[in-house]
């Protein structure tokens, strides 16, 4: 009988989530929630949604697609930046899971961070196709070969989840650093055969707070959920900007 009772006992897991109300709290604190772990496919985001729906409706966090595409639900899970929709409870159970807002960003409330700095940096690299002269619509599409698409495809997979910024100690120590995702995005457009905006992006990416601030820790690429490899984009940009500066005719279009 005792064995049967144990077998039917509900599996549970402890979630320790950061709580912070700027109007009441001086600093963030952790609050524990003991919730049912009913399904092996449950992810940390499911646990947070359970808390929000059944335990404490005041818990604040961002999420949207629940399938690793929107990039909204990035948080620190046991100290590592992760998309909570892709972090399975089964990988942590029976140990408790500490869920905190992404490091290196100001906290607005609970697990919600202020994205303004990131968005400003993203916009500063002009992440869109720039043409010296727009072709008329009647001229048709800008055609590309598969090889030309392969040149930049990897860097176009970024979902702006900001995990790379949370993993980057350089950004943590100096937030003037342009950061991994913004540079990877600049690289994506600079490698695009349809784009002609390299010289407009260079003043941003080639400045000291751009690629040269990076000391190649490489953790940005480790935590990237989409395999973008921002560290690669940054190092390649370093080499490119150096060659443009040093080689004869290196700076020509």
């Amino acid at each position, binding site marked *: 009988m005792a064995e049967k009772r144990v077998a039917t006992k509900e599996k549970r897991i402890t979630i320790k989530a950061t709580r912070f109300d700027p109007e009441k709290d001086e600093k963030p604190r952790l609050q524990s929630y003991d919730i049912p772990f009913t399904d092996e496919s449950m992810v940390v985001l499911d646990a947070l949604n359970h808390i929000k729906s059944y335990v404490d409706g005041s818990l604040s966090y961002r999420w949207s697609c629940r399938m690793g595409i929107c990039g909204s639900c990035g948080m620190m899970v046991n100290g590592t930046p992760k998309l909570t929709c892709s972090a399975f409870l089964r990988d942590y159970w029976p140990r408790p899971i500490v869920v905190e807002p992404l490091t290196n960003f100001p906290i607005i409330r609970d697990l919600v961070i202020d994205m303004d700095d990131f968005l400003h940096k993203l916009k500063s690299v002009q992440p869109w196709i720039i043409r010296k002269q727009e072709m008329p619509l009647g001229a048709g599409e800008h055609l590309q070969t598969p*090889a030309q698409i392969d040149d930049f495809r990897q860097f176009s997979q970024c979902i702006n989840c900001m995990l790379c910024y949370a993993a980057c100690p350089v950004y943590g120590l100096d937030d003037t650093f342009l950061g991994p995702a913004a540079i990877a995005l600049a690289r994506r457009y600079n490698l695009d055969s349809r784009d002609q905006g390299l010289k407009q992006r260079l003043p941003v990416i080639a400045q000291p707070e751009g690629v040269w601030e990076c000391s*190649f*820790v490489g953790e940005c690429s480790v935590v990237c959920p989409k395999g973008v490899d921002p*560290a*690669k984009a940054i190092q390649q940009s370093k*080499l490119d900007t150096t060659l443009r500066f040093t080689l004869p005719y290196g700076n020509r279009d």
Partner: protein
Amino acid sequence: MPAGWWLRKRHYVLYIVREFTALPMALWLLWLLYDVKSAGAGPSAFQPPRSIGFVVFSAVCLAFATYHSYTFLKLAGVIIHVKLFDRPVPPTVIVLTMFGLWALASIAIGAVLIGFAR
């Protein structure tokens, strides 16, 4: 960030070790520059240190330099993006080429130094 941020993850620790290995190398190179300057003043002014302590320090510097070079060249495949016959050269080929050039350069420098010593 807290001062001990680099202790949080193994990857961060390895990064700090990689960066730290440059420091003793810099000290050793400063000594080398000083010795080159002394040699310029004639054989009597050139007195390289021969103590056991300095030999140990040099051996440690050599180990650090080897590790630093290894980590640097290992990353060459990530950094260098070249195409041959319109196809990207695989990172493994780039890394192996770099290590090959490193070995050749080491042999050439070693041969020159031994040649001068004779």
